[in-house]
Every structure is written in C-alpha cells, then in structure tokens.
C-alpha cells in the first residue's frame, strides 16, 4: 500500500466493513480529540471500545474501557491508535498477537510508523496512517461539507441517510 495517498475506495471499504474498533489511548476528557473520535464512531453505530489502562473498568461515553486489547472479550476488527509514532510500534506488536487478528490497523492524524505498518501488512492486516477515521467517515458520507470542509468527493447521488434528521452514513458498494 502506498501510505502517502490512499484512494477513497480503500478507506471506504475499510469503514464499511469493520464493526468493532478498539480505540487505544482513548481519553475520558471531553475536549480531547480521542474523545471526539470515540463518540463519533459510537454515534455511527460502531462498537467502539476504549482501551486505556488508567481508566479500565470505567466507561467512557457509555462504552466500557479495557486495560489492554487482549482483555477485550470479543474479536476486534480494527485498532485505532491514539499514541505517538514511536509508541505506535508497541501497539502494533500487541495487535498482531491477538487471535483472531484484527483486519485493520489505523494510526491517527500525525501518527506514522512505516516499519510497524510493514510488519502488519506482512501479516495480512490492512493499514492506514496519518488519518482520522472520524474525518474520513464524515468526508466520505458528506457530513464534513456542513462545516465547509472540502470532501474531494464529486457525486450526483443522494447521500445515504441514517436514522435521525442530520445523520449520513457510508453507502456500501458505492463507486467513487
């Protein structure tokens, strides 16, 4: 995978396919970016699971926090890493010990570790780096345009609606 520039179809297929997401480094502080992402993923129907040893056993935004990925009682489709680029390697190693393996390892905006990414890809795990799943989801479903942000998506189709007045979703099988 070229990690400098991801095709929309690659990101879309990941966000369309995964259901369970471990958010490693999730904060209970309501103004931290990791809290924003966790609550957004929950609102889009993902089973987002905060991982933070300092907070284990207590919920964040209603989702129970685990001390480590290994403690989580269900298979994880995607690992979303809120740690710095160096520390991301350790999280990737831990993720590659999981059984079953996660399908995707995602490093947040500003986080990139090419060595760890190569390791994950060698194990058949798809990798995204230096991106935010909240921004990517909002971009691909069209919600980000409400904030005046350029989505880069050109389409004459109707956005896929989710329940509620102001909630879009990613449409499966859509052509970009």
């Amino acid at each position, binding site marked *: 995978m070229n990690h400098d520039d991801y095709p929309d179809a690659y990101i879309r297929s990941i966000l369309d396919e995964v259901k369970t997401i471990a958010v490693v480094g999730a904060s209970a502080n*309501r*103004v931290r*970016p990791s*809290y*924003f992402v966790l*609550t*957004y993923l929950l*609102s889009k129907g993902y089973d987002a699971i905060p991982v933070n040893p300092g907070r284990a056993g207590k919920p964040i935004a209603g989702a129970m926090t685990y001390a480590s990925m290994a403690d989580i009682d269900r298979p994880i489709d995607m690992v979303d890493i809120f740690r710095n680029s160096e520390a991301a390697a350790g999280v990737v190693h831990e993720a590659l010990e999981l059984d079953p393996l996660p399908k995707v390892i995602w490093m947040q*905006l*500003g986080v990139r570790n090419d060595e760890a990414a190569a390791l994950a890809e060698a194990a058949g795990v798809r990798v995204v780096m230096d991106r*935010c799943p909240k*921004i990517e989801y*909002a971009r691909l479903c*069209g*919600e*980000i*345009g*409400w*904030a*005046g*942000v*350029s*989505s*880069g*998506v*050109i*389409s*004459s*189709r*109707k*956005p896929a*609606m989710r329940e*509620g*007045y*102001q*909630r*879009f979703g990613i449409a499966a099988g859509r*052509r*970009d």
Partner: protein
Amino acid sequence: MSDNKPGFSTLAIHAGASADPATGARATPIYQTTSFVFDDVDQAAALFGLQAFGNIYTRITNPTTAVLEERIASLEGGTAGLAVASGHAAQLGVLHTLMQPGDEFIASNKLYGGSINQFNHSFKNFGWNVVWADTDDPASFEAAVTERTRAIFVESLANPGGIVTDLEAISKMAKKAGVPLIVDNTMATPYLCRPIEHGADIVVHSLTKFIGGHGNSMGGMIVDGGSFDWTASGRYPMLSEPRPEYQGIVIHETFGNFGFAIACRVLGLRDLGAALSPFNAFLILTGVETLPLRMAKHCENALAVAEWLNGHKAVEWVRYAGLKDDPYHELANKYVPKGAGAVFTFGLKGGYEAGVKAVSSVNLFSHLANIGDTRSLIIHPASTTHRQLTDEQKSAAGAGPEVVRLSIGLEDVDDIIADLDQALAG
C-alpha cells in the same frame, strides 16, 4: 474521472453538491431557515461541543451556504471555506482569528480603497495595527517585520487594476517571518489564479464580484490553505490554546489542517455575526457554475477594449497587464496566464474634468461602485471610491485624478467600444 482529479469546470458545477439528502432535488435547495431541529439531547450536546457535524443555527452553519463553502474551497485547492456576508466581513474574520490587541499586520499599499480604509481606521480601533509595504518591492515586506507581526495581506490582481503581485516572492518573506500570507483573490478568481499554489496560506474573496458575477448578491469567503503550522510559534492563541468558549478545546490540534476555517467559524462568525443569507449563497452558487466561461469571456473582452483604448488620442496611458508592453506583463504571464482579469484603469489627458465627463457621458456602461458584473461598469475613483484617501494615498493606490476604472462585462465587445468611443469624443 475515477483515477484523475476532476477538472476546474467540473468542480465549478459539482464540488460540494451531491443531490439533496432529503428530497433528491438536484439543484442545491435554498435552506431558508434560521435553525435546525435536534434528533435528541445527546446529539444537541455533541453539536454544541463540536463533536458531531451538523447544523444548529444559520449564523454558524447552513446547508445551502455549506455547498458554496465547499465549492470555493475546492476551486482554490484549500482544505475548507467559510462564507460570510461580504468581502469585508471575510477580512474581519481572518484578522480576528490571527490578531490580539497591539499586534501588527503588513499590507500591500495597492489594495481596494475600502480595504485601505478598513485597515487604517476600523481595525486600529481593535488595536490591530497595519504597516504598509510596497507591492512592487517584496523586500519592503521583510523590512516591515517586527516581533508583533502576525500576517501579511496582499491582493493577487490589485484593485483598481493593472497590478499583478509577485505572490511567490512575498510568500518567501512571509515564511521567513513565520507568519501566514493572506491573499485577496477577488479580482482574479481561482479560474485565473490559485494563490495557494504560489504559497498563500489563506485566501479571501469578495464573492460580490466575479464569483457571484451577476451584480445581485453581496458575499465573502475565507479559504483555509491547510498547510500553516498554527501551533509552532505560540503566536496564534485562538488556534493553539485551550478555548474557554468550548470548555478547553484546542482548535488546531482537534481539527488539523482545516482548523483555521473552523476557528474563523466557531470563534469568529459565531460571535461577530456577519453570516451570509442562504438565498445569497444560492444566487452566488448559480454564478459559480459558469465562472470558467464568464472569466474567459471577461478577459477576452477586456483585452480588446484595452488595446482599443491604447490607440485612442484622448488617452494618456492604459494600465492592463494583458497588454504586451505593460510593466506587469511578465508577472501576468506567470500568475494569470489565462488572462489579466477584466478590471483595469486608464488615464485621460484631460485629467480630473475629463474623467468626470467620461463617466457622465456613457450610456451602455453603468456608472457605479462595483466590479465583476455581467454588465460593463465605469467609475472615476478620485471622485468616488478613493475620495477619502489623501492625494498621496490616491496616487499610491493607482487612483490619481486622471484615472478611470473599467470593469468589462460580457456584452458584445463592439458595443462596449462604441459606448466608450462616444463618451471620449470631443
């Protein structure tokens, strides 16, 4: 289209506008509403806390206006846009986000007269101090830099016309000083020039002019270039410090490369209040769809009129960068290769009186204070737009007593020339 990036004309029609989510309406609907119903208390809290994307109140966001924002951001190659009520409101919004009382910004001395007024008077009341530099001398920008400098402001093509700014040279000065370069791209539009590609960090527009293009709607736009590091220097606390307005959110950290546009919206527009009407957004969007066609024709007509004036016996000089012997022709080839715009000035041998006579004698041309209409427009700046300036400022801004400014419209060029011919006769 699948592999290639869509072209400019495709973006001018499509960017930001998929079919309406509620009805499938293909033209962008006018969401003429002040406010939006919440799904539930949790969603309302997420919206107010900036955690979710969505609409609360039209002063902050509106789905019609949002299409215009995404459209212009996309045409400029920026990360995000913020539409406001006028070009002046855009300038206010940008500087409100960058400046604290006592700070300075450096501005080119060749600007729209209204901007010179805004900077010299209104902004000084906020404690934002303008320092003037010479557009034609990029080193003068460097010489003006102090500890308190927070930004540099220029126009790409400068109003009242004829001047092309060396954006790359001035962008180098801005980078050296560690401050953003703000470019007012009103006169060029992104069809002729995309300042972000030449090193601009922020682009502002008066949408009132060529972008709307039909002389029917006021509007302004702020475009975030997306590459400036707002955190490194600690000089931009609106972006780099926890904000008490939102329980301690740090905007740059949270919103990354579109943080500047978000700050202008949620810290600026929310409180300053100069929101664009959704109806104006709709009219301007309709204009944008034909921007490439209109700009090409505006430039073609303007060049023909400038060439004709250049040979007229009552005319002392013509300042249009599209003319081969013009001092700005080389810069025009670099920055506006598709055409030097449609606004330019010429000087009449008869001075102030001849200028007054010309604007009084036209018939097809409209004598008014605007540019960028389908109609051809004429003004004598010394007796109107630039009246408040001192004689020295008038000449520095290219608006001396003999100067007439034209904004060439989309009429048949023979009719435009015939009207000028009779107005300049005898």
